[in-house]
């Protein structure tokens, strides 16, 4: 009987060791000085965050800069994270705030050029799932148009639409990230969707 119990214990320990650590476990390890845990966090979040910030700012270089700054803040202020909150909402809050600061900075400088506003010069990777070049070009154009319309949304709608529809966060998580009431999140997401539906109708039929 004891042998059986030992075996079960060993198995469960092995399972624990083999599964990848949660974000919260990683940040806890990093708080204790494990820099490798930070590297894992970066690896896990860098692409997710750049997707969020890029769709928010519409500029890849700025987005990459904001994401770097986000990780730098996590590195410097790691002790500010408390395990009562989800790590993902914490890091997205930092990234979202930095992205909004970047937007405000841009507005102040008022040096937005038309090429920067558009997506014409962006070099994001397109997956090779289309067989014919025509389809690829068509799809690429549609995508550019969609991104353009996302960027044209007012900030308050844009941030919730990106978080909900692209990043697939729940309404509750968005409410935590942006620190706004749940009802406001739902209403903003719906209004954002309606605006996009009106502006992109030709792509949706």
């Amino acid at each position, binding site marked *: 009987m004891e042998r059986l119990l030992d075996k079960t214990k060993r198995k469960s320990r092995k399972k624990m060791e083999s599964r990848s650590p949660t974000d919260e476990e990683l940040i806890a390890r990093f708080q204790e000085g494990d820099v490798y845990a930070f*590297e894992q966090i*970066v*690896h896990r979040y*860098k*692409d997710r965050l*750049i*997707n969020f910030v*890029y*769709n928010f700012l519409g500029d*890849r270089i700025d*987005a*990459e800069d904001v*994401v*770097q700054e986000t*990780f*730098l803040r996590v*590195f*410097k202020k790691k002790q500010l994270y408390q395990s009562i909150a989800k790590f993902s909402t914490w890091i997205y809050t930092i990234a979202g705030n930095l992205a909004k600061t970047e937007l405000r900075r841009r507005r102040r400088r008022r040096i937005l050029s038309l090429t920067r506003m558009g997506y014409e010069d962006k070099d*994001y*990777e*397109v*997956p090779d799932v289309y067989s014919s070049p025509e389809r690829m070009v068509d799809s690429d154009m*549609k*995508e550019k148009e*969609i*991104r353009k319309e*996302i960027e044209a949304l007012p900030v308050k709608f844009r941030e919730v*639409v990106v978080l909900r*529809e*692209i990043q*697939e966060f729940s309404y509750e998580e968005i409410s935590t990230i942006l620190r706004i009431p749940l009802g406001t999140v*739902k209403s903003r*997401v*719906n209004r954002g*969707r309606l605006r*996009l*539906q009106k502006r*992109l*109708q030709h*792509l*949706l*039929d």
Partner: protein
Amino acid sequence: MNPCQRFRESIFDFLDGNLDVLRRKDVERHLKTCSQCARFLDQIRLLRLRLKNLTPVKTSDSFQVLLRERIRREMAGKRRTAASSTSFTKRWIPAFGFVVLVLIAGIWMIDQKTSFFDSGGNEGGIARSTTPGEESFDGQVQYVIDDFPSRISVSRTEDAEGAESVVEDSLIHQKDWEDVRARLTPVSF
């Protein structure tokens, strides 16, 4: 409110699966009869799909290297700041201590000089009384005799040799001075 408007208001809850059974059935019934609303629903569904399937953007290959470099620079800057603040302390605390010592010495010397002049060093001047509680006023000290029937103000003067004398209009004579002095209370100016 017409059924289409009602439907549009709850379409997102319908898509999110947040409607109760009755309301959901209501919406489904409406969709079967209204082609416009069915089209609207399809458009929203497709929009959500298109947004979800937008090509993911990836960070550049050098992202992690650049980040490491940024963190390294940040930490080095922090260390430099800490080191410079330490060297500042190391350099400035002794200097500050020295200045304080010089100041104390200066104050002490000034104090000594003043005492020297006060205690007769200044030969041409009139020596002030060093008795605690006594006030001097141009070489004259006024006193009040408490146990006289009325307060009588008298004055004494001191000459260059320090000899005391009672002013002439006073009621007290020179010979009684020592006796009276014990009963005098100096008047503070």
